[in-house]
């Protein structure tokens, strides 16, 4: 089966399994972002907006190169610039392309209450289907990377689709294609890991002894990975989480609490039902009325 097969393997808010028979036998896809090659030119931001027919606000300069200032329903990816001085006193300009990581275990999908608003394809892409989105923002709560954004205009959730429409016809995502320096590459996840290994070897030869791949296990690995010069300190890159995982709160909320709550409610109702059958109603009989009348007359 081709890479571009976009059979849905997981749907949000769906309690039964999606069709599982078809698998990505040729390998799941992944985007590898080599931060050490990135020059922060923002071509990926433009290509993303252009391909997806989005135009963000023309904002203002706040003393940073980060423009637009944050992800939004119109900016599904953006560069985050950090100036870092090493212990040796050398300056490093660390530029990270932020956006959806396409987690193998997506917190957004887990949190989403709307059936089919968030899906995961067999090739690993996690996609939002805005027509099913109800705008609750639970995906924002669920995401360990703070990626989904809710539009102020239509209250739908938006994020990078990994250009599922391009990948579906066998093309690479728009940001990957445009990247001038080859800092963004795309292929099967295995190939991307191998590519990353070559890059890491090169970086180590250039003195970056902690160079490494960012493919966090806490979310089951991701379909967007980074090569970092300082893989030991991901937080240097505009607070990339060191050990991202779906929050325990979200796990509780979307995990055990759901069946337990329904069970508790049902059990309460059922207990009442049993009581009614077993013991029956508490009724006022004529004796009670008579006693009441007596007392009323006495009082009068």
């Amino acid at each position: 089966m081709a890479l571009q097969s976009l059979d849905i393997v997981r749907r949000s808010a769906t309690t039964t399994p999606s069709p599982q028979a078809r698998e990505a036998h040729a390998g799941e896809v992944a985007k590898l972002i080599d931060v050490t090659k990135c020059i922060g030119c923002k071509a990926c931001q433009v290509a993303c907006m252009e391909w997806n027919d989005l135009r963000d606000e023309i904002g203002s300069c706040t003393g940073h190169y980060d423009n637009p200032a944050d992800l939004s329903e119109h900016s599904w990816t953006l560069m985050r610039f950090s100036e870092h001085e090493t212990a040796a006193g050398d300056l490093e300009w660390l530029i990270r392309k932020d956006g959806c990581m396409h987690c193998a275990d997506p917190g957004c999908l887990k949190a989403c209450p709307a059936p089919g608003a968030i899906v995961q394809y067999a090739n690993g892409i996690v996609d939002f289907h805005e027509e099913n989105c109800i705008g609750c923002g639970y995906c924002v709560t669920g995401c360990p990377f703070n990626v989904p954004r809710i539009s102020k205009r239509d209250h739908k959730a938006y994020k990078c689709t990994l250009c599922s429409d391009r990948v579906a016809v066998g093309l690479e995502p728009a940001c990957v294609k445009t990247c001038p320096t080859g800092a963004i590459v795309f292929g099967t996840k295995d190939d991307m890991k191998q590519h990353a290994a070559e890059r890491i070897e090169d970086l180590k030869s250039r003195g970056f002894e902690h160079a490494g791949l960012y493919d966090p296990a806490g979310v089951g690995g991701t379909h967007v990975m980074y090569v970092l010069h300082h893989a030991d300190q991901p937080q240097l890159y505009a607070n990339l989480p060191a050990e991202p995982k779906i929050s325990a709160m979200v796990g509780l909320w979307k995990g055990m609490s759901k069946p337990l709550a329904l069970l508790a409610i049902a059990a309460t109702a059922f207990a009442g039902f049993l009581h009614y059958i077993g013991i029956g109603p508490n009724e006022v009989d004529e004796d009670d009325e008579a006693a009441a009348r007596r007392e009323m007359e006495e009082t009068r």
Partner: protein
Amino acid sequence: MSARKPPEIVRYRTSTRINHWIVAISFVLLALSGLALFHPSLFWLGNLFGGGTWTRILHPFIGVFMAVAFALLAFAVGGANRMERRDWQWLRGWRDVVGNHEQDLPEVGRYNAGQKLLYFLIVLCLLALLLSGIVIWRAYFSLLFPIGLVRLAAVVHAVAATVLICAIVVHVYAAIWVKGSVRAMTRGTVSPGWAWKHHHAWFRDVLRGGGRE
């Protein structure tokens, strides 16, 4: 004797009854819409509100409305819900309560200890739901709070709602179980026998011209 119509005792004023039913209807709407958003298997309940998106839009507004209405109700009946010494005794006799043996229990005022506890439970739950609900109200407020708090609020909201729904199930069942209670909240009156049997102390108050809301 049987021809004589028994004198009725007013338990709830009209305004209180209306208030109660507003809260009650709001609660039902909230429970249905909340469950739709809470459990995928109940998402279809959202269709009662015009679909998922409308459910998401309406739920918090109804919630705020209910919180306000409930606040009025809680304020109105708050005075009669103070726990007293005899209430604890009443609670210790819960087996008699459940078994319909009220005669063995200390006499009860306007509300029994179970009702009072329920009152406090509902107040607490609604407070938790209101506060956590504001935090997870994405359209207006969520951006103001750190993501950790939003996540906590989502859990608090779910837990409080579950407790509340259970509490209301108990409340509703109690009304079904103790015959004559429903009329108290629909027509506002109870028979003297009902009052004599279930709320003897209050019955005496009424006879002495007190016991009004």
